[in-house]
């Protein structure tokens, strides 16, 4: 006689619409994720099948149940509470948009568009179909950040979007991009194109990032000499600060480079910051807004992460991590003020600003090289994507911090910037309703903006990204 295979009682629960009756199931321990997913699909008789991932006690199930139990020293007696989440298929590479030089900034903040900034001092605007719309070449230095927000109504220049681009030429340029629907079809290229509204001057040093507040009323910039500039987004009516005196050579050169644009344009006023936030002792890598618009978070090369009050400019809290240079910062979605920073010592560090101690790193995600760019998921509070100098793009789930969910190696060397977007992310009420796609873009040394689609399976909304690329594809084939 043969013994029955060893089994373990499971309590399967979910927050997705695919709920099973809350009963205890006796599952053979040799079951893997795929078999468990098949089990749910057959019991719910889903067609087409929906792949699921399984969270056992806060960590993703990678191998069989038996291997999980062995790793965690668990016997087969206790009931395991397993949450299953709808897993998402690996991103599918869609296109590569060639650029003139290294891509230093990408943004998906303009709906249905892709913004890119490069070392050739230009900002380019693409449609989601990779069609080049506009090229903004007003900067005289490499672009460090680019972003967009809807044009405030008080500008009285019509509907559209404001595109902010920061550059190493120590300025932030603010362009107005009119909405295409408002444009007359026969309008000339000059009218349809974006118009430079104003330039924001923070300090004599290079600007490393720019970010508009969620309401669009304020803009914060970060500079290489450790300052944060807080601007209102009103348009200046006159020069708020005098022009820099430049040496002859560069002035000559600039005149030579762009003689037409300066002559043609109406005068662009220089704008000064309303507040300078002093505190960092070295280069500030990035400054971001809290979603409530009340706080600013910044991280710098002086090993600190700081919080600022956006109204008063007072410094709220400092987290110091000795000998850890922060290269970028992002705020995780959700109510908890959880910050993630990418560091030069090959980590992603998570900070909880509510904790009292000054240097508490809550969690670290190990990387193989410096994390140059990091973007949290717009809605899911446990997902973030990172780009490293080795050219590796990863998607991490904080619940499984040892290994990334998705790892994509770019061929072209260093990856300097990444961004992602989920359609409908700005509308939380639609969460859970399927049929949408995610976009994932990255740029770097290979002079390309690469675009991926995170394809959903079975019409469900992109919520979580699943397993490693290869085995996921194989399993998907098997399931369908």
């Amino acid at each position, binding site marked *: 006689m043969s013994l029955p295979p060893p089994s373990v009682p499971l309590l399967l629960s979910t927050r997705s619409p695919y709920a099973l009756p809350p009963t205890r199931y006796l599952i053979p321990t040799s079951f893997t994720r795929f078999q468990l997913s098949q089990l749910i699909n057959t019991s719910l008789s889903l067609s087409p099948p929906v792949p699921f991932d399984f969270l056992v006690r806060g960590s993703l199930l990678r191998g069989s149940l038996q291997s999980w139990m062995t790793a965690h020293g668990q016997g087969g007696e206790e009931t395991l509470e397993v949450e299953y989440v709808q897993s998402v298929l690996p991103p599918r590479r869609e296109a590569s948009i060639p650029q003139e030089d*290294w891509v*230093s900034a990408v943004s998906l903040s303009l709906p249905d568009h892709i913004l890119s900034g490069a*070392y050739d001092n230009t900002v380019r605007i693409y449609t989601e179909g990779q069609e080049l719309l506009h090229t903004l070449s007003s900067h005289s*230095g*490499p672009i460090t950040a680019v972003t967009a927000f809807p044009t405030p109504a008080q500008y009285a220049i019509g509907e559209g979007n404001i595109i902010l681009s920061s550059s*190493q*030429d*120590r300025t932030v340029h603010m362009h107005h991009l009119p909405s295409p629907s408002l444009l007359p079809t026969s309008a000339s290229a000059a009218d349809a194109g974006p118009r430079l509204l104003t330039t924001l001057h923070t300090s*004599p*040093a*290079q600007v490393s990032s720019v970010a508009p507040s969620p309401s669009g009323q304020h803009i914060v910039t970060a500079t*290489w000499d450790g300052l944060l500039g807080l601007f209102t987004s009103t348009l200046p009516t006159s020069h708020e600060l005098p022009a*820099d*005196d*430049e*040496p002859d*050579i*560069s002035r000559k*050169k600039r005149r030579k480079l762009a003689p037409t644009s300066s002559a043609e344009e109406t005068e662009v006023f220089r704008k000064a910051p309303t507040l300078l936030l002093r505190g960092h002792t*070295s*280069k500030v890598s990035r400054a971001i807004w809290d979603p409530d618009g009340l706080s600013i978070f910044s991280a710098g*090369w002086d090993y600190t992460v700081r919080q600022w009050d956006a109204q008063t400019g007072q410094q709220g809290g400092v987290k110091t991590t*000795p*000998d850890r*240079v922060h*290269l970028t910062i992002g705020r995780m979605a959700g109510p908890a003020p959880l910050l993630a920073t990418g560091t*030069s*010592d*090959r980590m992603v560090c998570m900070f909880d600003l509510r904790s009292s101690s000054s240097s508490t790193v809550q969690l670290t995600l190990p990387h193989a*090289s*410096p994390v*140059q760019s990091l973007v949290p998921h717009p809605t899911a509070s446990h997902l973030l994507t990172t780009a490293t*100098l080795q050219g590796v793009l990863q998607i991490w789930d904080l619940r499984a911090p040892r290994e990334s969910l998705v790892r994509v190696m770019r061929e072209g060397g*260093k990856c*300097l910037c990444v961004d992602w977007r989920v359609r409908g992310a700005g509308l939380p009420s639609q969460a859970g309703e399927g049929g949408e796609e995610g976009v994932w873009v990255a740029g770097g*040394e290979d002079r390309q903006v690469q675009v991926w689609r995170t394809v959903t399976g079975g019409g469900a909304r992109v919520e979580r990204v699943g397993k490693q690329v290869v085995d996921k594809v194989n399993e998907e084939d098997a399931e369908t």
Partner: protein
Amino acid sequence: MATAVARAPAVNGTKRKVDDLNEKSDGTALGPINLTLSDPEESEGTDGSDGEEEPFPELDLGSDTEEDEDEEDEDDSEYDVEGSEDDEDNEEDDEDEDEEQTPDSRLTRLIAKYTEKPDESDPSELRLEDPRAPKIVQSNITGFPKKVYPEIDPVYDSDSSTEEDPNRIGNVPLHWYDDLPHIGYDIDGKRVMRPAKGDELDKFLSTVEDPTSWSTAVDKSTGAQVQLSAEELELIGRLARAENPDGDYDPYEPMVEWFTGPGKEMTMPLTSRPEPKSRFIPSKWEHKKVMKIVRAIRQGRITPHGKMTAQQQPQFYALWSTNEESATSHRPPLPAPKVRLPTHSESYNPPKEYLPTDEEKKEWEEMDPEDRPENYLPRSHDTLRHVPAYEDFVKERFDRQLDLYLAPRVRRVKLNIDPESLVPKLPSPKELRPFPTAQNVVFEHEGKARVRCVSWSMDGEWVATGDERGTVRCWEAEVGKCVWQGSFGSEPVGAVEWCPKYNFFLIAVSGAVHLVIPPFLPPAQRAAGHTYTTTAFSTPSAPDPDAPKWTSAKTPLADGHVLSISLTGNPKQLAWHGKGDYFASVAPDAAAKAVWIHQITKHHSQSPFRKVKGTVQLVSFHPKQPHFFVATQKYVRHYDLVGQKLLRTLTPGLRWISSLSVHPSGEHLIVGSYDKKLAWFDLEMGIRPFRVLRYHSRALRSVAFSPAHPLFASASDDGTVQVFHATVFADLMTDPRIVPVKVLRGHAVTDGLGVLGVRWHPRLSWCVSVGADGRAVLWCN
């Protein structure tokens, strides 16, 4: 006590039983005896045990004479049992009395008892009938009476002086004869009749009438009343009083005063010698003896209080223990050398190649036995069974014994030193963080030209590198993007040095030093640098024909090229002073004009040395004082620029100095050499290196102290950069602590050249290294 008393009559050799005396003296006024024997029943009860356990007579015998002992010995056998016999006797007597017999029989017995009264009361008379007494018979020859002694049967105890007893029944209980008229037989076999014995009334009457009746006792062997003599009574009395039985003993003899008393006083000392010194000093021998004990106590051989515990502990030792030290105090015997193990040729059936040929055999046999390499000839046997007895067995054993006996042996003790304990205690590298550990950014040069030199900008944002094809590149350090490049001829770039005060840098190429303000900088920084470097053009100084010429770059070689300084020779090194105004250039091939010190603000150059001994390799400014270091091939000279004098010449003991770096404090100096060594100088300590480290496997190319962290790095042709943590203590007494923390591997060795330069970030613990493989690598913590 009864037995003790009973022994007493033995002194006289007469066998009298004092128990009978007891019986007789019941209730009479015999003081002393009555006192001791007042309760015969009680004493009888204890007799059985006491009589044997308390051998008083033996103690008493000690004081007796030898004659007495003889008699006693013979009597012992009788007396030992006598006590118990008497008891039985008495009881039986009582029984007899209690038992009501017929009056007739009793009467006849009594009559029988008392009809004959033998005249044996006098013991002296008994002696007349001694069988050994001579008989007087008529001589047949002479006719005169003569004494004829009886024949003596020479058997054991034939000569017995105790054979005086008239009653010869032997040692049998007397009550056997109770019903008989006689009490035994004499030596001739005639009956010894029972002496007459009165009844109770007679006894009573005799006690009343006869004043001596209290001093009579019954002789058991004869059954007669015996009158005790005065001496015997006195003896009994003394025994009863527990006195010395000897009547002549006087316990209170007067003391004879032999030495004291009047007339015997000593008026003079015995000698007139003065007291010897030894009486006043502690005894040496006593001291030795005491010290011996003290030593024994110290060594633990005497344990004053631990005796009991030592006895309680089990006494054993490890019989097979190999730890010789613990067991005994004396030295263990030397182990015998091991016997050599047999080899292949000693096998009973060795392989063919071991078997000697006939010639070899012959040669071996002709050799002197002393000279033979082996003392045997290999022989082959088919089976082990055919192997004959070993003919040299006894000889070999004997030689071995001789060796063991005669050959001196030495005990070799292995030094039991843990090699780990000899290594100095260094902190773990983990405690010394931060230091660069990983290759973060790689700056790839096109065409794989060897990158010779590297420099950080003052703010740590940019890195400038120069390669062997005359190209200089600037990189954004964070991401490794080349932001500027310029070509300055086809000769190798000797040095690139960023100014520590303004954001511009100098490039040393063959015959010139070029100054470049890179265009990627913010305009304000560029303007400041431009003003700083070019204002001196407006005030031209008096032209010196020998001095290098400062010329503005009318036709710039590259974007940002501002001015050039023409130099003779091929400058290999540039060194900035910390304030950013002066810099020094070294062109080793320019002989006497090798070293120039240039001033940016005045566009002035001067040669500090009129004549230079040796080829100058490197120079360096002191970071805090107006001092100047000049390294030639073998020496480092330390000059005072203000006093214009040589302070000292450091002798590293290296063959060819390749690199030099001054500690930010200015008190320490490291020198790297092409002979793979690194010398650390403490300038306070003298001209010899404090430490010479040799850890690279190939020549050192570059050494550098970190300006912000206690770190230094050395780059070598073996393709590695080694990072050290070097703590310099403010305390002058503590030596610098140098701990190797990391070996950075990442550069490939091409054409025998590895890493050519290493420089530290001005603020962070990062360093950048350039190599012959055409790469510059940023190492981060």
